[in-house]
């Protein structure tokens, strides 16, 4: 596992544990065994303490950890009978956003999400999770399709932002994002969004304008990435940590500000340390939210979603 720069203390303790394990080939030496146990405990406590007080900038690093479960992992673990639906019917098939029909806890759903990829080849294929207009037009197409057949929609958000490129601009990146957001607001079926890593700017909003927006404990949701924020505010992307710390980007801040609706606690040391647990907890959380909204009338679903966003930032 890859340690983050602020995990040095934990890394040292954990490496000592594994060293000791190699030194004690069997359970002959009880004193070493005892030592290992103590060290392990110490390492766990250090990890727990560290993750209870992560700064927003440290959380940004956790949210971007390459071993953190990606959309594909959730798709495989939580959904059955997945039928991928490709393409925007206008230009191409953007692999930064994947989507299709699936079963979630015996309910038919449309599932859509950003995929970052887990190795170099995949990352290039998925463009590091940064979609172009085709990705957002695909999302829009799939959401409309789901709406027509009364199928609830679940979206997984994990992107640094929409891709800034020549082709993306020429083919209307901004219009595609705006239309996708508009579609989110118009569908009469439940729309639940979960931010599993980075919720980067308009690229996230385009599929996260949902009835319920849920964040993992160490994920972030930003108006612009901390690097971009620092560059805009102070013309210095090196001040990213300052930007992160002052812009209220954590799940804890955002639930307090009533921007999001729920936070899912991560395993100690972050989701990347225990895939199994986080996948299970996300499943439980999603099915609870889904069952709550599914009962509602189409009109109410649209109205509630609109009213939720309209009330943000209003006084009284």
């Amino acid at each position, binding site marked *: 596992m890859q340690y983050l720069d602020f995990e040095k203390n934990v890394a040292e303790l954990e490496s000592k544990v594994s060293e000791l394990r190699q030194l004690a080939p069997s359970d002959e030496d009880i004193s070493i065994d005892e030592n290992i146990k103590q060290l392990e405990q110490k390492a766990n406590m250090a990890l727990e303490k560290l993750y209870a007080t992560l700064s927003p900038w440290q959380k940004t690093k956790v949210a971007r950890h390459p071993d953190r479960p990606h959309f594909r992992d959730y798709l495989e673990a939580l959904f059955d009978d997945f039928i991928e639906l490709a393409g925007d019917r206008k230009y191409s098939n953007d692999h930064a956003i994947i989507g299709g029909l699936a079963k979630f806890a015996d309910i038919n759903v449309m599932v859509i999400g950003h995929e970052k990829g887990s190795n170099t080849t995949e990352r290039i294929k998925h463009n590091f999770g940064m979609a172009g207009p085709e990705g957002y037009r695909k999302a829009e197409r799939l959401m409309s399709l789901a709406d027509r057949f009364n199928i609830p929609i679940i979206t997984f958000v994990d992107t640094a932002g929409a891709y800034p490129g020549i082709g993306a601009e020429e083919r209307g990146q901004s219009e595609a994002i705006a239309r996708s957001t508009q579609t989110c607001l118009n569908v009469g079926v439940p729309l639940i969004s979960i931010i599993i890593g980075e919720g980067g700017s308009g690229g996230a*909003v385009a599929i996260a304008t949902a009835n319920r927006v849920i964040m993992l404990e160490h994920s972030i949701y930003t108006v612009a990435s901390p690097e971009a924020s620092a560059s805009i505010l102070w013309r210095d992307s090196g001040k990213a940590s300052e930007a992160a710390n002052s812009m209220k980007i954590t799940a804890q801040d955002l639930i307090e500000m009533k921007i999001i609706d729920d936070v899912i606690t991560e395993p100690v040391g972050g989701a990347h340390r225990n895939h199994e647990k986080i996948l299970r907890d996300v499943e439980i959380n999603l099915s609870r939210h889904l069952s709550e909204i599914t009962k509602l009338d189409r009109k109410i679903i649209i109205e509630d979603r609109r009213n939720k966003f309209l009330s943000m930032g209003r006084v009284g």
Partner: protein
Amino acid sequence: MSWINNIVTPKIKEILTKKDVPDNLWIKCPESGQMVFHKDLEANQWVIPGSNYHMKIPAKKRLELLYDDEYTVIDVEGSVSDPLKFKDEKKYIDRLKDARKKTGTDDAVVISQGNLGSIPVTCIVQDFAFMGGSLGVAAGEAIIKAMDEALRSSSPVILFSAAGGARMQEGILSLMQMPRTTIAVQKLNEARIPYIVVLTNPTTGGVTASYAMLGDIHIAEPGALIGFAGPRVIEQTIKEKLPEGFQRSEYLLEHGMIDMVVHRHDLRSKLITICKHLLNK
């Protein structure tokens, strides 16, 4: 000597440094470098006579140019002004105060109602002079309020966009203006009220990725920079030089993103004609 120093010298100094006129008496064309007398520029609707460069224009002047005569500015209240209590070298509330003083408006968006070619319309203007026209809660709220007023009076909406993008100092609440304004546009669409966007220099970032690209008709002023990502960001990402005219109005027209590029002198009459068409008048 002392009376000379005390009385004459200050008098002379006063004469030498006296300013009857503002500093910006002559305005330089950012494109051609040509110097234009400010009154000539104003008479030409802030378009440089030689180069046809369209200068940025204060919100109130924009309204004067648009309406037939009188118009009403609508007040906007009821939104948080400093949600993050943001502070860098300077407090955000102090930056707001400075911007208010400089522009004479409460925030970056001014909303109004009046007649355009005898048709009652609602007009929304984003003023670049107010913190780069950036979109925060107050600006978003103004857009929503204007569109709601248009809904009530059933009058077409004309929106002049100009913004670098999000109001960074308001963080996520700035981002939330994208869905919020989109809801307001959607209500106009549902009520079949014409919504015309005039994209002016510059319109970038989250603003384009919401209400500014959801118009029934998109007009752009000549040479305006319009895009989602700023050119500097794109250049840094792809590490290539950008094509000639990239993200300018004429380029967007070629790529099918807008309906027309209209010179500021022709804008008013074009808008009247479009409103008449859409209203079946």
